[in-house]
């Protein structure tokens, strides 16, 4: 997976900030942002996750004209994506780490490249065998300079996590 163009847009940043319940004016008010140390509208710390919107192949977004595995009136019985080698309903996000080389801001146009990291297995108490896999995404700016390094660890459980 790679993202050729991830423009950091003001409306997108505003919607993302609203979704995480963050009313900080630096995320939507340009006049206010100009008076801050950053001097401009910046993106919230976890915003680069929304680069999924700009990944043409992102498998957790319904695609026009293609079947979608979420339910209508009833479950569809469809698999999310035949190319995925795991059952998405068993996939969970285990860890996420960000390193900010500089802070992303509105007007940046980033690219993202993804490389696989480590994989490992563990026996879970509440969900059977756990398969962990790491992916590392590097976000670079227009000049090719590294802006954010994101490391994500996903886990696929053998069965739904039992609730305590």
């Amino acid at each position, binding site marked *: 997976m790679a993202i050729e163009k991830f423009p950091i847009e003001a409306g997108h940043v505003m919607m993302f900030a609203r979704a*995480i319940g*963050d009313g*900080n004016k630096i995320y939507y008010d340009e006049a206010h942002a100009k008076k801050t140390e950053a001097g401009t509208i910046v993106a919230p*710390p976890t915003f680069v*996750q929304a680069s999924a919107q700009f990944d043409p192949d992102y498998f957790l*977004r319904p695609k026009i004209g293609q079947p979608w595995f979420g339910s209508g009136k009833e*479950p569809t019985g469809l698999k999310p994506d035949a190319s995925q080698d795991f059952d998405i309903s068993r996939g969970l996000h285990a*860890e996420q780490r960000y390193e900010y080389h500089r802070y992303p801001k509105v007007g940046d146009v980033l690219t993202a490249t993804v490389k696989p990291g480590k994989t490992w297995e563990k026996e879970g108490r509440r969900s059977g065998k756990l398969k962990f896999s790491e992916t590392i995404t590097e976000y670079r700016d227009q000049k090719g300079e590294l802006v954010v390094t994101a490391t994500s660890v996903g886990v696929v459980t053998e069965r739904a996590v039992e609730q305590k």
Partner: protein
Amino acid sequence: MALKASQLKVGDTHKERIVEDLKRTQIVQYAGASGDYNPVHTDEIFATKVAGYPSTFAHGMLTMGMTGKMLTNYVGDARLTKYGVRFTSQVWPGETLDAMATVKEIRQEGGQHYVDLEVSTVNEKGAEVLHGYATAKIDP
């Protein structure tokens, strides 16, 4: 607004309620903004009948995003250099979450002051749902 090394000490804490009675609509909002439309988060029929969960549940990244709000309120805008978490428990609609940062170390590197924080978010039952760390640039 940024923190000052001279006014911080190890063990200082900052705590915020980041969400009260988490609404399913907020989870939908997060799906729309982030682009993660995995139906386990927004589609009750899929979450219960297909995936076998008691209900839909929040994206881990929503909890990390809301916890990030507590961090940026504390350290100031565009000051973080690192932020990482483990999702230790799923977050369900209706939960109320409190996020806390604890100062672990105040240090200097190449003339720049930094604070290292431990980060923890718990639900209304006291169960930890997120545990992690953050580092921010601070003023002298």
